[in-house]
């Protein structure tokens, strides 16, 4: 197998795997596997998978840098779009099935329930990221601006975890696991960034230590 077809195979399998939660839910819907409160169940499942895909998306860069498997970057956009897909599904279920498009209640929820406020904010942040995920948009924005914009994904992930944390009544275990994973993923980036800054500063100070110059310019008297 060539390297290229191997990578294509991995990408295709990842795509298929990412659809498994959806397929499983459809199967459960027809076989009574969603329990006594199916709307709540599918709301929770879609939200859980949105968060999980956000974490996977954020894991690509650290894994790639640590293992040196560079082509993994090519999975990132797909994973990010799946996070957006499940988040959109999550919101659509809330909007259509849970609230039945009762916009007065929905607006009240968004304005007054902090966990819904932050969850909604996270979804809003993901929209421009999904829209600008194409190669053409990267080119149009320019690499620097594009990557600065896409740093917003950190904020979206943090708000998403907060959304889960504030929803839960007493058993904080699951949202705490998400929070821990996110801390590791963001902490890794912070440390890498810090080391880079230190290196740059050292280089700078070394180069500025070059030629000797007087502290005050000599004056002619």
């Amino acid at each position: 197998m060539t390297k290229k077809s191997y990578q294509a195979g991995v990408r295709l399998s990842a795509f298929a795997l990412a659809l498994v939660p959806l397929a499983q839910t459809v199967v459960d819907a027809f076989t009574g596997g969603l329990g006594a409160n199916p709307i709540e169940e599918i709301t929770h499942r879609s939200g859980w998978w949105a968060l999980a895909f956000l974490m996977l998306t954020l894991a690509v860069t650290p894994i790639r840098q640590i293992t040196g498997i560079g082509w993994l970057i090519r999975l990132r956009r797909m994973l990010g779009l799946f996070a957006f897909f499940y988040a959109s599904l999550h919101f659509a279920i809330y909007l259509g099935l849970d609230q039945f498009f009762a916009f007065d209640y929905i607006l009240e929820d968004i304005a007054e329930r902090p966990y819904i406020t932050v969850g909604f904010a996270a979804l809003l942040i993901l929209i421009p990221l999904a829209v600008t995920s194409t190669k053409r948009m990267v080119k149009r924005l320019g690499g620097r601006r594009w990557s600065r914009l896409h740093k917003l994904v950190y904020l979206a992930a943090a708000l998403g975890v907060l959304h889960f944390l504030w929803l839960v009544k007493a058993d904080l275990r699951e949202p705490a696991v998400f929070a821990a994973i996110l801390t590791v993923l963001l902490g890794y980036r912070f440390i890498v960034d810090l080391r880079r800054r230190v290196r740059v500063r050292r280089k700078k100070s070394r180069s500025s230590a070059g030629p000797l110059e007087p502290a005050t310019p000599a004056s002619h008297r």
Partner: protein
Amino acid sequence: MLIRRPPDIKESEVTDEGLYISRRRFIRSAATAGVGIGLVATASPLLSCGSDRTAIADDSMGEASQDDELTPYEDVTTYNNFYEFGTGKGDPAKNAHTLRTRPWTVSVEGECGKPGVYDIEDILRRYPAEERIYRLRCVEAWSMVIPWMGFALGDFIKDLEPTSRAKYVEFKTLHDVEQMPGQRRGVLDWPYVEGLRMDEAVHPLTLFAVGLYGKVLPNQNGAPIRLVVPWKYGFKSIKSIVGMRFVSEMPMTTWAVTAPSEYGFYANVNPDVDHPRWSQARERRLGELRRRATLPFNGYAEQVGSLYSGMDLRRYF
């Protein structure tokens, strides 16, 4: 008596669920048609193993009774909040088999004339179970309609002879990590504690339930004996009770201790007072697609509203 000796009941003697529901519908429509209590009384020996049915159950449904389809047995017994067996809704049905409901005692302490340890068998013998169909409204904004088997808590309390210093009753769930594996984790302050004001406890709607759907109470629903207070959020209806105490001060109840800004002592169902994290204006009745409006006191305002006259229900939530 139906409940007293569970092993003696043959499967064939238990009313088939479909039949049971159709009979309930028949009774309800008969009652609406004005035939009323007389027919219910004559029909009652027919209905199931001589359990004592009273008209209170149907009366208490009020005008909403036409709307209140029973929630299927399957849903009532697989969708539970009973953190002693895990925090997932399906966990209690999976894990509650470790609970041993015999032998079982309820200890009675505090301001009363008859403190002591009461055996569940003696309680069941003395207070015959009758059927009460009640709505159950969870603080999480979902609801069910459940045909409980049980007896008025007031009858039990009267026999315990509370003194004039008894202003509240405190209830306590079993605390045993071997039987209740969910207690290994400190999700809540174990044991679970709940309480009622004395007038709430002796109100005729307040039930000690020992069964549902004409069957012995399943473990995941709080076997062998639990409280049912239909006008309060579900967490007030404490399960698997091992202790009662008559006290003069308001008891510290588990959820109110865990999150005082979210859960109060009274916890009366109130569509006008939102939980800080979700609206209480509407609820999802399990089995229904669209949410329905939540009623004050869960639709029992006529019966219990007077208990709270003059009280600021926003403050005492």
